[in-house]
């Protein structure tokens, strides 16, 4: 498995990038395994010294050592994407020590202090993305929700209203298909589909790859429509300015409590499909109370992308957030 792009693991794909097609990573051993002279043992020595008791004949050395070696190499594709590939090699040597033999191969375990976040690598790339957005004065919004909340419909209606007033770009995350990006592109806005394959969220690396293809919507808004999932995307920083969590009134009022991490991480909760409220037993106040219970400072907007009710306030929120982004370095 490719540890960085995940190909061979979950078939992650950024539209039009090389991952659209299945591929392998051929390499010449002499180029890539730079320390091949030592590759098997990586420079660590293990001799098979035996202590031979006086007066006894040396015993044939026949003992077993198992080693695993691990190294990484990187290579760059024609499209300038670079991958790191870890490799492991297992080796077994069989020897048989005599009764008095001592193996010098036994090494004492030692403790290494790490103190690093598990997602440190993602967070570091997310910070690079964030700096790129700041430099371009792009407002990057990470739209998160359950599947079927109406994210794409809201986005399509939003893009129609923005029109050509400022630059807009959309990154669409889904496990499969390009249908959402197709819907966005039908509005005339540049969009790129990122398929995460088996992955349940977008990560900072995928956003960086998509940006190289899509551009950054300088002084405008980059909408990132995350995979429909209220769990994992909460943990993966993409470098966005804010997360916006979208909940439809056809879902449960207790979603903020069930998926508190996402609501705690979001600056704004947009309640969609409000035109359906007369037909439902949905307690909107309870939803808002629950959201504020896990995040007292979360903003709330109620709207219907279909009827257009509440869209003005959402557009106003976007304009204000963009103005704030433009106002500061």
């Amino acid at each position, binding site marked *: 498995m490719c540890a960085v792009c995940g190909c061979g693991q979950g078939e992650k794909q950024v539209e039009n990038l090389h991952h659209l097609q299945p591929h392998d990573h051929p390499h010449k051993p002499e180029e890539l395994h730079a320390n091949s002279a030592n590759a098997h043992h990586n420079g660590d020595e293990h001799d098979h010294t035996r202590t031979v008791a006086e007066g006894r004949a040396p015993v044939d050395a026949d003992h077993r050592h198992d080693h695993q070696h691990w190294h990484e190499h990187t290579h760059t594709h024609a499209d300038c994407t670079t991958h790191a590939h*870890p490799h*492991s090699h297992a080796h077994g040597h069989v020897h048989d020590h005599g009764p008095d033999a001592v193996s010098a191969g036994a090494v004492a375990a030692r403790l290494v202090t790490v103190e690093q976040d*598990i997602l440190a690598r993602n967070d570091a790339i997310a910070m690079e993305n964030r700096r790129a957005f700041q430099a371009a004065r792009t407002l990057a919004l990470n739209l998160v929700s359950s599947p079927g909340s109406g994210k794409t419909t809201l986005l399509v209606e939003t893009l129609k209203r923005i029109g050509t007033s400022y630059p807009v770009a959309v990154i669409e995350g889904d496990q499969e298909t390009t249908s959402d990006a197709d819907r966005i592109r039908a509005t005339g806005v540049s969009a790129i589909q990122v398929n995460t394959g088996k992955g349940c969220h977008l990560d900072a690396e995928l956003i960086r790859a998509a940006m190289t293809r899509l551009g950054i919507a300088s002084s405008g808004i980059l909408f990132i429509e995350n995979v429909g999932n209220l769990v994992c995307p909460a943990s993966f920083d993409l470098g966005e300015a804010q997360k916006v969590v979208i909940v439809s009134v056809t879902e449960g009022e207790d979603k*903020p409590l069930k998926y508190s*991490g996402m609501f705690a991480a979001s600056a704004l909760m947009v309640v969609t499909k409000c035109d359906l409220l007369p037909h439902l037993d949905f307690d909107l106040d309870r939803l808002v109370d629950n959201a504020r219970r896990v995040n*007292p400072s979360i903003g709330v907007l109620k709207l219907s992308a279909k009827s257009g009710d509440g869209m003005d306030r959402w557009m106003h929120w976007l304009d204000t957030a963009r103005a704030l982004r433009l106002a500061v370095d």
Partner: protein
Amino acid sequence: MIQLRLSPGLPAMHEVSLAMALMDLVCAQATAAGASRVTRLVLEIGVLSHVDAHALRFAFDSAASGSPADGAVLEIRQIVGTTYCLDCEASVTIITRDAPCPRCGGVKLLAQGGDEMRLKEMEVV
């Protein structure tokens, strides 16, 4: 606590992603330390982090297979959740995000800690 999962594949995917990120970190650290094998990992996982320890262990075993951490003992230390209660203006300890303030019963709590997912240390040879 016994948890029943109707869809066992889906909730565990989160932990698979984390286990793979963990393996990247472990391999980089092992290489930097000149180690050939990792025998034990100590993680600090906050109770508010949405990480299921059982699922993470399962995912780790798969992710570590064939790596220097294959067979390593995974020690998971739980970190309590701490929040600041806006009502009684104190830092308090909670177990779930929707739990009320244990002092005053208030529900306006600002999370301060407990969502950690950290590799603290590892034992290598």
